């Protein structure tokens, strides 16, 4: 996936974190990686609002397992960049308590796989607090997600579907550096809890020149990642890049014009963007990296069925991971996770219908 649509990042171009903390604009527009974009958002929001603070495992002195929070503690001190015990439930629970008091905590899950340890806190406490007792939880839970990195069953997960079913939460999963920055800033400013999934495969593999100024991307709005007329691919996160690769190939080999919708926010879902593309192309493929059964593709399919059934010329198809824990060995992982060729094959089936 990185070969054609993403650019490798040289060490020299990775701007040190301090550059983004002092508010100065670089003289020359430099490209920023997905990971650096997240770090920039954290710096800028902590600079902007003293209520924002970070907590998580090894995020302070060490700068986080992926170095997302590198430089943060040096700039903002130990009381605003807190190294915690290995206690995901306490991290999330304490964030909720701080949020009740008017703070805007940003929790890091060292790997998003460990968010399951805070499932109770998020679904029972945080997600219901406003509804139950008018006590908001303006907080963010973020962390490295996703596969293609040979991480095995517990360092590769995409747990969005487990939380997608919980009213009261918002879920964001950006595909680009620009959206990663803009959506994280929006998430920190949001008055409810936002789960912010970061794709670790994209961390250092994609980069772009970010918009200048206070770049905030609204939560709940999808984006058209590629305009097309024949088939729509509705997707998000790293699968946007696979879909773009497939679209290139289909354009070249088959003359098929593929439109790609990058959902960016999963909850609340942008129904308007979905309906718009269905009406335009009348053929829909949904692609996600998460497993198939009970996955978000099923919900999108149901919405299309309810909102735009008469606009369909073919059944909605899904390309997803197989329903297995994600295995470690490369031949196994590659077999389970969606590949560009799978997407090409599925689009051809839709066209042939």
């Amino acid at each position, binding site marked *: 996936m990185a070969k054609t649509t993403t650019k490798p990042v040289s060490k020299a171009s990775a701007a040190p974190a301090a550059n983004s903390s002092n508010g100065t604009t670089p003289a020359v527009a430099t490209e920023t990686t997905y990971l650096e974009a997240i770090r920039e958002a954290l710096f800028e929001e902590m600079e902007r609002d003293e209520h924002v603070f970070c907590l998580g495992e090894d995020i302070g002195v060490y700068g986080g397992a992926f170095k997302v929070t590198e430089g943060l503690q040096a700039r903002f001190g130990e009381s605003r960049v807190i190294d915690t*015990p290995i206690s995901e439930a306490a991290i999330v629970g304490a*964030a909720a308590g701080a949020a009740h008091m008017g703070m805007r905590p940003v929790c890091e899950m060292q790997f998003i796989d460990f968010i399951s340890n805070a499932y109770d806190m998020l679904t029972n406490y945080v997600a219901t607090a406003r509804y139950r007792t008018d006590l908001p939880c303006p907080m963010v839970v973020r962390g490295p997600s996703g596969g293609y990195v040979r991480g095995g069953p517990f360092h590769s997960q995409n747990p969005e579907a487990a939380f997608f079913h919980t009213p009261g939460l918002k879920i964001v999963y950006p595909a680009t550096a620009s959206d990663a920055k803009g959506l994280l800033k929006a998430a920190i400013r949001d008055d409810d809890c936002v789960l912010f999934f970061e794709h670790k495969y994209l961390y250092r593999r994609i980069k772009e020149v970010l918009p200048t100024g206070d770049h905030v991307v609204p939560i709940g709005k999808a984006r058209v990642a590629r305009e097309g007329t024949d088939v729509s691919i509705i997707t998000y996160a790293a699968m946007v890049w696979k879909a773009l690769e497939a679209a290139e190939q289909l354009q070249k080999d088959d003359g098929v014009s593929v439109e790609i919708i990058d959902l960016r926010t999963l909850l609340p879902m942008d129904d308007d963007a979905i309906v718009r593309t269905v009406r335009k192309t009348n053929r829909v493929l949904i692609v996600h990296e998460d497993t198939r059964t009970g996955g978000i593709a099923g919900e999108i399919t149901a919405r299309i069925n309810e909102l735009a059934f008469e606009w369909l010329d073919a059944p909605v198809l899904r390309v997803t991971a197989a329903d297995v824990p994600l295995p470690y060995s490369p031949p196994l992982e590659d077999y389970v996770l969606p590949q560009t060729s799978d997407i090409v094959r599925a689009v051809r089936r839709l066209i042939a219908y």
Partner: protein
Amino acid sequence: MPLSREQKLELYYYMRLTRSLEERLVNLYRQTKVIGGLFRSLGQEADAVGAAYALDRDAGDILSPLIRNLGAMLVRGATPVEVIRQYMAKGDSPTKGKELNIHFGSVERGFIGQISHLGDMVPVMAGVTLTFKMRREPKVGLVFIGDGATSTGAFHEGINFAAVQRCPLVVIVENNGYAYSTPMHRQTAAAAFVDKAIGYGIPGERADGNDVLAVYEVTKRAVDRARRGEGVTLIELLTYRRKGHAEHDNQSYVPDGEIERWARDNDPITRYITVLRDTESVTDDEFAAIDARVTREVDEATDIAELSPMPEPEEALRGVYGDVASVDSLWFRDAVRSAVETHERPAAWGTYDG
């Protein structure tokens, strides 16, 4: 500073109010006016009231009660009418009919509503008090949990987190002998819950939970330590749950005579009356005046709450998100609504009838 005579009488007032309010709720429950379950704190009024009384009313301290801590909420300013409306699921209850029993809070008055998942309020209160510390505010948090909740992961993670961060937090383990039907020896192999403090590197204290002045004093020491920046204290209060887990529970698992023995020998209100008579020369007339005030307040609250309206059904869709006034209603629900309005609702469409 020792408690004044007036303050000691106030402790009696809150204990009596707790008991009388719950007795009124039992009456309403038997009249099927309480919609859900009813949870009693009979015999535990001293630990809830005494501990909450150790917090400062004006300093911005915050408390998180558990299901047997109605008394603590009353001390913090919850009113009988709120409690009755809440139990009766009224539209103007503190949660607008969305939550049960004493699951409600008021940050302004210094208490946060609990959830049913035991132990979860410990991490939440760790975060509340972490904020006090970050802002260098001289405020204290207090969280009640039961003996059973000490077995949860959330308790361990929360108290450890707070201990490491030296949060100004008091954790009270209200040991009333039973978690639903499970006695202490099936909950822990430790000789006492207070022993757990050692493992977290924090001070632990144990007190007679049915002696309201002892509860006040042990909690006040911990509150003062927390306010001085000396971190978390674990307090075990020994008491006894004289009623079942909830009103439906027949307590068949309790050995014969145990409840009666506690009621006869160790009722916190009876004990406290003796103390007040002996040490403060409180007269029968003074007790009678407080009791009459409590009865009047509970009566008035009942009258008001009974007149309160039930919630509008559409309230169910409000308040999920800050930026969405109301979740969209579902088309078939709208159809039911319109059918009701035109008197065409088929019986098979369920119990919803606006």
